[in-house]
């Protein structure tokens, strides 16, 4: 069972309430698809991913980026039950989408970098550590139903 300190809960809530999901979601997903191009294989039905410019202007990718942030929001609103929150999504990613769970960490890294770019000096070492802990818990929960 993951234990969160008051400080960690406060930091996570503060980060997410400072984010514009419609801006950062698309940016994080685009960054992932550009920096780690093998992740594009999961988006075969999303249209033109031919180059970075195409990825950045692809409306389906943008919409999915926003969806991902709203998905993370569900964990933020249920910090003591993240595993349960993502049970269905884990089964979906494993059995239907067949996403290699290592890729969840890659997307998490890209989101971390987008948040760092947005918050600048406000993204202290403590903030980064707490956010990466949160993403590690999310990634673990999403991988739980894989077998």
């Amino acid at each position, binding site marked *: 069972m993951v234990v969160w300190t008051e400080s960690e809960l406060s930091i996570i809530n503060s980060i997410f309430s400072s984010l514009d999901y419609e801006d950062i979601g698309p940016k994080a997903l685009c*960054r992932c698809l550009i920096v780690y191009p093998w992740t594009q294989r999961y988006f075969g039905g999303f249209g033109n991913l031919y180059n970075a410019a195409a990825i950045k202007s692809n409306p389906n990718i943008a919409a999915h980026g926003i969806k991902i942030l709203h998905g993370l929001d569900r964990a933020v609103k249920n910090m003591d039950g993240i595993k349960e929150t993502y049970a269905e999504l884990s089964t979906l990613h494993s059995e239907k989408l067949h996403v290699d769970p290592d890729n969840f960490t890659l997307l998490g890294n890209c989101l*971390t*970098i987008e948040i760092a*770019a*947005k918050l600048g000096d406000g*993204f202290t*070492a*403590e903030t980064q*550590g707490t956010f990466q802990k949160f993403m590690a818990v999310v990634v673990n929960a999403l991988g739980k139903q894989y077998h």
Partner: protein
Amino acid sequence: MSLTDNDIATVKAIWPKIAKVANEVGPESLARMLCIYPQTKIYFSHWSDLSIQSTKVKEHGVVIMKGLSLAVEKINDMANGLQDLSQKHAFQMRVDPANFRLLSQCIHVVLAKRFKAEYTPEVHLAMDKFLSNVALAIAEKYR
């Protein structure tokens, strides 16, 4: 995943800007790695202070950036250019190569928070490939 001409050009274009703030980027990246991935502290157990304020951490962060500048200089043949560093990491320090990825993530975060919109996915990609290749060159002598 070897470096293309475009990757090399991208790294060489941003490196002078990074070099200007190397004395801050290096220490901050190292300090973040030690704080966020405590298992990495094992390589620095001979220092009593591993906090962000530590003088030793600051000095070593600068040393790391000098190593990366050397890697940029030798970007076309890093395996040979970084031989001495590889010997050190392999035989003296015995650093588990998995840790290079952790330091790389911290470097990306520090560069992103400094350069913000300038740290585009394209620049991030080139830097990530560069750092991965540095890690490979450093691990060259491991076995």
